[in-house]
């Protein structure tokens, strides 16, 4: 039987992609050594394209040299999944959790991440569903509203999910999103007729859906979360 499950949430605001990546690497290492509890990073990124382990850069439709002109960065990562875009007004969750302690495999973990976004969508009357075979993610009809790309190392997760609240969808035109042609990308703003509250509220709801679906009974917020470690000093 499982003991009480604690989740520590870091609300980080706007974070550069590489800095978030470095922070996750450190947290994964700390989690492996049981120095920290299951941790959830909640944040947004400046315009950033990212590739997964398979390096499917044929799905980037503009030359890399052009990216600076549109104000975006490109990063190669070790996560699963194809090419995607992250940017302002897209809610990101990076869970750094021990799947082994939860007894969850990759498949069940990803299904719960999909459910997290599906539940959030339903709060706004949007009927979203999980992707069919080979199309992991969250869809409203034929339009993709949420993406997933995960890394699992010795049972500890990093990377996670990206939910489109109201990002600039034009950026997606420069890629074949997730390697799936002929399917559109959408956002909560586009799919709902309900007035949207502030993004802070929506991100808070996303965190609650996550915590509930994963069975956390204690959720604490980290005071002053920072990309600096506790041991680094500010000059």
């Amino acid at each position, binding site marked *: 039987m499982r003991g009480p499950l604690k989740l520590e949430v870091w609300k980080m605001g706007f974070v550069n992609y590489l800095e978030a990546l470095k922070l996750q690497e450190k947290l994964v290492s700390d989690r492996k050594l049981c120095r920290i509890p299951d941790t959830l990073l909640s944040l947004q990124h400046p315009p950033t394209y990212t590739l*997964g*382990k398979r390096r499917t850069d044929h799905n980037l439709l503009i030359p890399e040299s052009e990216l600076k002109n549109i104000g975006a960065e490109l990063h190669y990562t070790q996560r699963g999944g194809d090419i995607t875009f992250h940017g302002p007004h897209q809610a990101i969750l990076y869970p750094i959790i021990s799947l082994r302690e939860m*007894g969850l*495999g*990759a498949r069940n973990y990803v299904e719960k991440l999909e459910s997290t976004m599906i539940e959030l969508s339903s709060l706004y009357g949007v009927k979203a569903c999980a992707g069919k075979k080979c199309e992991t993610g969250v869809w409203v009809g034929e339009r993709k509203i949420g993406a997933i790309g995960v890394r*699992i190392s010795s049972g500890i997760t990093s990377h996670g999910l990206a939910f489109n609240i109201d990002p600039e969808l034009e950026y997606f035109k420069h890629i074949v999103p997730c390697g799936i042609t002929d399917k559109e990308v959408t956002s909560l703003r586009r799919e709902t007729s309900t007035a949207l509250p502030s993004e802070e509220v929506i991100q808070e709801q996303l965190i609650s859906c996550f915590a509930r679906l994963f069975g956390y009974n204690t959720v604490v917020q980290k005071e002053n979360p920072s990309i600096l470690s506790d041991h680094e000093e500010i000059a």
Partner: protein
Amino acid sequence: MAPTMLWASRAASYLRISMFHRGFSTVLKDLKYADSHEWVKVNGNSATIGITDHAQDHLGDVVYVEIPEVGAAVKQGDSFGAVESVKATSDVNSPVSGKVVEVNEELSSSPALVNSSPYEGGWIIKVEMNDAGELKNLMDSEEYSKFCEEEDSKH
């Protein structure tokens, strides 16, 4: 492994459909197992390594396997490669230390072999062990079966 199973898995891989997921996981008697769900088959100083039926079932359909180069060193408990399934890359750890002497080239065109034939066609690397004494750190089939049951009862 019956030729029809290999053909079926290749067809499934090509058509991108999954083999059905059974309700139980197979554990083979003569293998040794790591708690990160890799198996090892020992023959003298040679070790063949893959992931277990339990592991492949919990991963979902494997679409990509990252394998090391022949000649690479591996260490017990350390990652030597990864598998990708359902947009998740999962590290694969080596149950023994030694040198990679052979890798399963089939996996680049047929990664689904890991799902359909985890103990045979889906083997990942062969290692020349440098410390057979490490095998005592691994579980036998009975211990591993029990370990899987305990893990699965957690949720």
